[in-house]
């Protein structure tokens, strides 16, 4: 069953075409990674998929709900960790408080943040903040979780802890769409990979297919990453 279908998406900013006819499908339980050089339109595609940008043309069809994990977390600084996670389920989804708190505590435990529920975002490391933002997104019980370069604002040693969390979610068959520059991670975790270049989908396939492809564009791109 496909949870998301995007067809012929086009988007320009000030006359510059950022997305030129992009189509993709996300199946339930799959992990789709979107890779490609900077400026290839990956983030814009994700912003169109999540409604933060409106495409100039094309069609987006959803089955279910989605969450988004931002590159720079965008936690609410005036809320404690637990309030960041529980506020939207209580105020937006109007769910029962005790049930939401119970679920939020379980999520924080899963993220290794049980002792931080009363801390404020400014007291946490970048990796911890990103884990809170993942918990915040998961607390809404989304059908799809989008990640917009979730480790790009983190030090290399903090990157690993976020990648591990995403891997664990993949093992639980969480449907995810991940824009990333972490190539070996993308190769390990993804069912499908979409390689974007200059606003087009240059190549699409399973992780094995994409990484073994002889396409000159992707060879050139992957060649810039040493440990592939």
């Amino acid at each position, binding site marked *: 069953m496909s949870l998301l279908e995007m067809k012929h998406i086009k988007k320009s900013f000030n006359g510059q075409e950022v997305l030129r006819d992009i189509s993709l499908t996300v199946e339930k339980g799959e992990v789709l990674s979107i890779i490609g050089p900077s400026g290839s339109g990956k983030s814009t595609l994700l912003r169109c998929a999540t409604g933060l940008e409106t495409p100039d043309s094309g069609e987006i069809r959803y089955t279910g709900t989605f969450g988004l994990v931002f590159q720079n977390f965008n936690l*609410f600084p005036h809320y404690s960790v637990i309030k960041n996670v529980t506020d*939207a389920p209580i105020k937006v989804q109007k769910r029962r408080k005790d049930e939401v708190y119970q679920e939020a505590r379980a999520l924080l435990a899963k993220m290794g943040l049980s002792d931080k529920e009363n801390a404020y975002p400014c007291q946490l490391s970048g990796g911890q903040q990103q884990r809170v933002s993942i918990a915040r997104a998961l607390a809404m019980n989304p059908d799809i979780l989008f990640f917009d370069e979730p480790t790009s604002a983190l030090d290399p040693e903090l990157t690993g802890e976020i990648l591990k969390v995403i891997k664990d979610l993949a093992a639980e068959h969480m449907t995810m769409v991940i824009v990333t520059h972490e190539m070996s991670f993308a190769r390990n975790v993804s069912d499908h990979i979409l390689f974007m270049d200059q606003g087009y989908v240059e190549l699409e396939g399973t992780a094995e297919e994409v990484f073994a492809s002889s396409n000159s564009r992707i060879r050139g791109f992957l060649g810039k990453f040493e440990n592939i």
Partner: protein
Amino acid sequence: MAISVMLMKLLEGMGVSVMIFLVTLIFSLPLGLLVSFGRMSKNPVIRTIVKVYISVMRGTPLMLQLIAIYFGPYYGLGIPNSPGWKNTAVAIGFILNYAAYFAEIYRGGIESMSPGQYEAAKILGYSRAQTFFRIILPQVIKRILPAVTNETITLVKDTSLAFSIGVIDMFTVAKALSASQTSLLPLVFAGVFYYIFNFIVAFFMESIEKKLNYYH
């Protein structure tokens, strides 16, 4: 005149000054927020009207505005001034003037918020009102507090402008006493009272700032 009598008369005037201060704050703080919405409105007509209003309020003396509001209905429309009109005119003048200043402070705070906060709220499904009142406004208040403190302290001193239309605030009393007693002492006392008033205001505002210091 005994000093104690002088002090009593000044304190009576001080009651009026405090009233002007409180009424102005209570009404101009929320009104300023509304005005800032108008100033940031996508509708060019609303935006322009509000811009002109702010420009006039900030560009002309408050004393002149008080006089205009007090005498306007009589000279402009021929409506005779009722006895209580003085106090109402002072309240209207101060509220309209301070709302304009507060609006610009709010606008600065609101426009300094990162778009990421709105985006995170949108993805989580918060309505526009929820986004503003739960996510944006609390952070804006923290950011604008030093500027609001500044404006509030200015307001304490500005209350003395009420004398220009004959409202008997502390400054009016001090001037009258000074003239009748041919002494500067009442003015010195008035100065001390204004200072104490502001000392309390600054202390109060600082304690709010400290309370909001739990995050940055």
